[in-house]
């Protein structure tokens, strides 16, 4: 109980600003390969951002840097007021405050759906198992699969698995949600159920960064669309302007190819 109240009351504390994420001059290399080039990006609280671009453009790397699944060599990333460069402590805090959904779901196959959802709240947040279970059931309800709680991930369809993954992330009460191509591994008929879940989440005011090629989703929920190519942010703008009158040649080419 106390855990929850302290989190809530300190929510505005480190983030005295309205910024959920700021990236400043971020550079990353994989050996010789320059994966992120001077990325500067700010995300306001409650903002919904869609990041698109050709494969290998660095978009996944970009959002994986936000919860430090990837380290950076140069620049500064501040998430919810915590500087990721300030040491392990702030990285831990940031990981608790950000939820992530992966292309390949990455559910824990040896645990039931419910256990998948309760493990981190119990072990990381220290909530009681009864409370964690109640929270998990609430979120499974919200992603519309409460009846699957006692099944194992392998018994579910891809769309259901991804919705479990979203519920699992939400059980940690994150302030920011990161989506790394959440619908790319799904059969076409299952894409919609996952997107609908994400749209619900967006309508509740969650700060979201989504790497996705679902342009319909981008039009519908994004406050801002970012186009990346070869490790750079080439263009960004409100979806209306971005889709109707892209400024850059590369953006036009990309949009021409995917539509």
């Amino acid at each position, binding site marked *: 109980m106390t855990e929850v109240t302290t989190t809530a009351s300190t929510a505005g504390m480190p983030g005295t600003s309205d910024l959920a994420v700021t990236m400043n001059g971020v550079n990353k290399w994989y050996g010789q390969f320059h994966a992120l080039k001077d990325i500067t990006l700010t995300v306001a609280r409650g903002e919904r951002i869609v990041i698109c671009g050709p494969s290998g453009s660095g978009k996944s790397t970009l959002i994986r840097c936000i*919860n430090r699944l990837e380290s950076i060599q140069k620049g500064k990333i501040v998430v919810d007021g915590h500087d990721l460069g300030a040491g392990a402590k702030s990285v831990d805090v940031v990981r608790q405050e950000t*939820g*992530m959904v*992966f292309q390949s779901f*990455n559910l824990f196959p040896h645990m039931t759906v419910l256990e998948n959802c309760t*493990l981190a709240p119990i072990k990381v947040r220290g909530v009681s198992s009864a409370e964690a279970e109640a929270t998990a059931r609430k979120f499974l309800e919200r992603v519309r699969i409460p009846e699957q709680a006692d099944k194992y991930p392998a018994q579910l369809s891809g769309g259901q698995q991804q919705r479990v993954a979203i519920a699992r992330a939400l059980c940690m009460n994150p302030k920011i949600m990161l989506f790394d191509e959440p619908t790319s591994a799904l059969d076409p008929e299952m894409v919609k159920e996952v997107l609908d879940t994400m749209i619900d989440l967006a309508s509740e005011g969650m700060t979201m960064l989504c790497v996705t090629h679902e342009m319909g989703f981008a039009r519908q929920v994004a406050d801002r669309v970012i186009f990346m190519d070869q490790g750079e942010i080439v263009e960004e703008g409100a979806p209306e302007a971005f889709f109707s009158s892209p400024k850059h040649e590369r953006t036009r080419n990309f949009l021409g190819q995917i539509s």
Partner: protein
Amino acid sequence: MIRPFGWNEFLIIVMAAQWTIALSAIAFAGGGIGGLLVALARVSDIRPLRILAVGFIRVFQGTPLLMQLFLVFFGMNIFGLAINPWVAASIALTLHASAFLGEIWRGCVEAVPPGQREAATALGLKYVNRMRYIILPQATRIAVAPTVGFLVQLIKGTSLAAIIGFTELTRQGQIINNATFSPFMVFGTVAAIYFVLCWPLSLLARRMEVRFSRSTQR
């Protein structure tokens, strides 16, 4: 005095199997703990630990078990400890098993898809909890079959302890053979007992392997 190889002699050899089993059990238990540490060091983020683990594994994989037994047995004497075949055989086989199980289990830990570690990390789980709840439970399933396979090797390997004077199955066979001079009967019996110990384990390993491959293909 040559005595014939009879029921009594047979029973003496059979009874010696308990020491083979006891030594195998000690080596397997010790090697289990050591192997887990070696495997964790081998996949650690800390470079010196990794190098240390690799060095340990290479030394024990690259030298004969008999030499390892000799070095521990005679080495204890040099360091001023009383020569004791029990202690020497236990230490040598434990180190041996630690190196091999460590390398087997490293492979199993690395066989868990990287997405599992990433998902656990993204949820805020730290190293110990990640290993304990996510990585090791999955690695264990993969590890069961090769681990049982190694246990068979280990049981057969204990026969070398006979050379440093540890009275287990093989050594008891030598002693009985010295009295009966019927080596074919004696060592035939000894071999049969090893077979009875190892064959069910091999079958078990095979069964688990099949079950595992069935459960991972979907």
